[in-house]
């Protein structure tokens, strides 16, 4: 180090605030405690309720284990478990197949428009499954546009959304981007050395693909399969919209129906089913950790030194391009397009010319009732403020876990990632109980702050996924330099690490904003008058059969998310994968 440099550094260090004894410890313990409380808050009441003989807010409860027995003996519960399993499995199969194919086709071949398709392929993950299922309903439902068209030509439609395969198709399409992202970001897809070797040895395109590329993708596929299976287990929207009328119940709709919509809400049963769900997902997440070890906990989409050579499709280029275009049109563009069109029409049917039914009345009636503008506004507040709060929290947790000598950082890391194993419905029920149990919290129950708390807790792992990779890539020399000059951990973090982390924190905020904006399962048990968000209002309007209003409100959501995603990707180059 030159003399000048050391003087400037010395001056800089002189300018640093003097460390306060014990400050680091206080911040670290405080943050750790806050995290543990936030994550335990919904889980403990659920566990507690599952061993009580009556609602936990009643008087005279007795401890009992009979709920578990009752649940297993509940009529048709076996079928519920079976349906859930079949639905999640089919969803996973479909999403993994589509995602892997897309990753190879859009990421590794010389197909025309591959990048554009890749972008469009991601869209379902930006929108909620709820909005997507409304879109599918408008096109492929029994009275959907395309269904009626096909029926007028042939006798009957070849598909049925009111079935496990039909529902799994929608869920699979909406989850395929997850598989796609993991494949695209796996090291093997960007590391062509082995493929080159195969080519040199005389293997053709297909053979190389089959023997080298796909096997190398297996870890990524397996990893995201566990993720998608988990999502399949905790999906509520699709089974509620399509499964319920057809009498197909899965675990989430079972919770929903017995929790709020039943003749005798059986809290013991609900909590016990929630505990069961929690246990299954915990096992799955643990399995996921075991599958790939901890090295792949966070996905990074870094650049690589060599650019892989794309596979030459030669004569198949255009046919495959056409096929991709049809797929993207059928699964993403048409459903969303139809939803937007439905928002501007009084009804949508191939028998009626669209010009005859064009109207703004859906939007007019949307503005007429306070609940709709209010839920849009609330969604903005929850997403913005919640996003800020959650990002701050995630930033602090990340530096404690990854950049401090905090004694309990390993357990804290585990705790912070635990919400991945907590389905949204369970988190919602848990917060509902927690706020009912803890005196003094009651006042927050009918406000959006309970939503902010629940969403924050639920999505800490998502936020960490956005921040951790950058933190892991950042050399620790920076903070070490500050520490050797006498700065304490907090000063080093506040003055050096966090400012350097800014891009990751911004990305984290945007991801959380979008996630909060579309979230509804966690909110279902928690919203109250004045604290509705778009997702809950959508679901309510749907149950009242207000298809036009649903489409109008969904249009608002799609537009906001669309603007956010486009802006984030264009201006900041943020990778919106979590």
């Amino acid at each position, binding site marked *: 180090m030159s003399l000048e440099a050391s003087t400037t550094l010395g001056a800089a260090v002189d300018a640093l605030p003097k460390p306060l004894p014990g400050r680091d410890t206080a911040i670290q313990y405080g943050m750790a405690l806050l995290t543990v409380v936030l994550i335990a808050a919904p889980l403990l009441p659920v566990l507690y309720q599952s061993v009580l003989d009556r*609602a936990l807010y009643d008087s005279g409860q007795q401890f009992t284990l009979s709920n578990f027995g009752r649940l297993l003996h509940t009529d048709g519960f076996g079928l519920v478990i079976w349906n859930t399993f079949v639905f999640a499995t089919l969803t996973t199969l479909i999403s993994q197949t589509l995602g892997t194919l897309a990753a190879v086709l859009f990421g590794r071949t010389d197909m025309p428009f591959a990048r554009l398709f890749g972008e469009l392929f991601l869209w379902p993950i930006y929108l909620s499954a709820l909005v997507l299922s409304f879109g599918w309903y408008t096109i492929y439902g029994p009275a959907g546009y395309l269904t009626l068209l096909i029926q007028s030509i042939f006798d009957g439609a070849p598909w049925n959304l*009111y079935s496990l395969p039909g529902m799994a198709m929608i869920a699979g399409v909406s989850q395929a981007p997850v598989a796609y992202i993991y494949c695209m970001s796996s090291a093997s897809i960007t590391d062509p050395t082995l493929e080159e070797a195969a080519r040199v040895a005389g293997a053709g395109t297909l053979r190389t693909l089959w023997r080298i590329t796909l096997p190398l993708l297996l870890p990524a596929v397996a990893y995201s399969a566990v993720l998608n299976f988990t999502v399949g287990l905790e999906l509520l929207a699709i089974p509620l919209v399509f499964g319920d*009328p057809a009498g197909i119940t899965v675990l989430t709709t079972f919770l929903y129906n017995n929790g709020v919509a039943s003749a005798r*809400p059986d809290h013991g049963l609900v909590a016990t089913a929630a505990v069961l769900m929690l246990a299954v997902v915990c096992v799955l997440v643990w399995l996921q950790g075991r599958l790939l070890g901890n090295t792949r906990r966070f996905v990074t989409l870094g650049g690589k030194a060599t650019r892989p050579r794309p596979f030459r499709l030669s004569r198949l280029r255009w046919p495959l391009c056409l096929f991709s275009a049809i797929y993207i049109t059928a699964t993403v563009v048409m459903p969303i397009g139809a939803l937007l069109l439905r928002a501007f029409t009084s009804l949508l049917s191939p028998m009626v010319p669209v010009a005859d039914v064009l109207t703004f009345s859906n939007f007019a009636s949307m503005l007429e009732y306070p609940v709709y503008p209010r839920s849009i506004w609330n969604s903005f507040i929850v997403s913005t403020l919640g996003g800020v709060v959650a990002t701050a929290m995630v930033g602090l947790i990340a530096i404690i876990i990854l950049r401090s000598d905090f004694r309990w950082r390993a357990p804290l890391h585990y705790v912070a990632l635990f919400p991945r194993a907590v389905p949204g419905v369970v988190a919602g029920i848990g917060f509902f109980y927690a706020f009912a149990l803890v005196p003094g919290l009651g006042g927050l129950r*009918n406000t959006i702050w309970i939503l902010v708390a629940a969403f924050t807790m639920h999505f800490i792992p998502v936020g960490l996924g956005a921040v951790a990779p950058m933190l892991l890539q950042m050399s620790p020399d920076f903070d070490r330099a500050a520490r050797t000059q006498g700065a304490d951990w907090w000063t080093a973090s506040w003055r050096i690490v966090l400012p350097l982390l800014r891009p990751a924190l911004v990305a984290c905020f945007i991801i959380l904003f979008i996630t909060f904006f579309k979230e509804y399962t966690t909110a279902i048990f928690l919203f109250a008058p004045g604290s509705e968000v778009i997702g809950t209002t959508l679901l309510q309007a749907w149950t009242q059969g207000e298809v036009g209003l649903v489409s109008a409100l969904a249009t608002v959501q799609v537009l906001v998310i669309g603007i956010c995603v486009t802006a984030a990707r264009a201006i900041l180059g943020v990778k919106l994968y979590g």
Partner: protein
Amino acid sequence: MSGINRRSLMAMSVLGATMGLRGAPAQATPNGYPENYQKIIEDAQREGSLLIYSIMSPENWRPVIEGFNKLYPKIKVETLDLPASRESFERYLAERSTNSRTCDLIATADPGGWIDFQQRGEILDYASPEAEAWPDWSKPFPGVYTVSSDPMALIWNNTLVPEAKRPKTLAEFVELAVSNEKAWRNRVTSYGVHQTTFGYGISYAFVKKHGEKAWDWFAQLAKLSPRFERSGGPMTEKVTSGEYVTGWFVSAITFWPRLNDPARARILGWSFIGDGQPVVLRGVAIPKGSKNVNAAKLMLDYIISEDGQRAFGRGGLTPARPGVKPGDGIRHTYSSIVQAVGEQNICYIGYDRDAVRDYDTFLARWKKTFNVA
């Protein structure tokens, strides 16, 4: 955190235009009300707000709140519309146990819920000055009154059911369905007893009236694998779009307002059920945990007054107060339903303790009949 309640603002600004918001005249006691009512009004205005948990939609409430605010402009009314009829009680009980802010008035159609609520001793025994105008069936427990008497009807898609075949009774409905067994599979709809208390109440009352014959009808309908919905909205939508052909026991108040659209009125047909017309009674009462008791009393009195009944009628419900006639945007009232089907053919979904007792056995049989889990 609801910020400003635009609805009351709207109502207030309309009022402001007519009478000036500030210096609104002191509220006069309505005619025929007791002397001490003036004090309730004054206390209510001091409370200044009212939170209602209900199963009704904002559309249903709007004329009522407007009318109420004409009388009492200083009271800000908020409603929370909960999709499941039991939820109002659940939410109240959970909040009550923690002494947090809860609702001041509950209005929902859930007989079992009301019975349970009464047993818990949560109902404020309020004697309304309007009570004398109401028959006994509408006042099941001290403090519980009736908002509306909503009929459950038959609906069909006019393009799919020829005019000559359209049913007037459940017997005809079943006959028609069975004769189209193949074509209408999965295309007949109703409430699922296994899904909502609302659906349970209707089917239970109907079975109580017809006994085994009703079960026999259900068994016939089960051959078509009906699709069950949780509310009348989707049934109406799906029958209109042709996804379903027809439905039985469909809440008339969900489709009556939609028939104001002529395009829809051409497609959607409906009828009362001549051999057993289920009528759902919506109860309203003040819970003991109410923080704005006086405002709640004013609202309850208004709801069961002639004026409030007409307002709910304009909002799409079926006024239950005897003597209220259709017209002025009100399609039907209790009186006009009685005229249509005859008093003897009405089955009230009231407050039948047997319905609570028989729930499990009935549900088991229902599930078996329709082969649902």
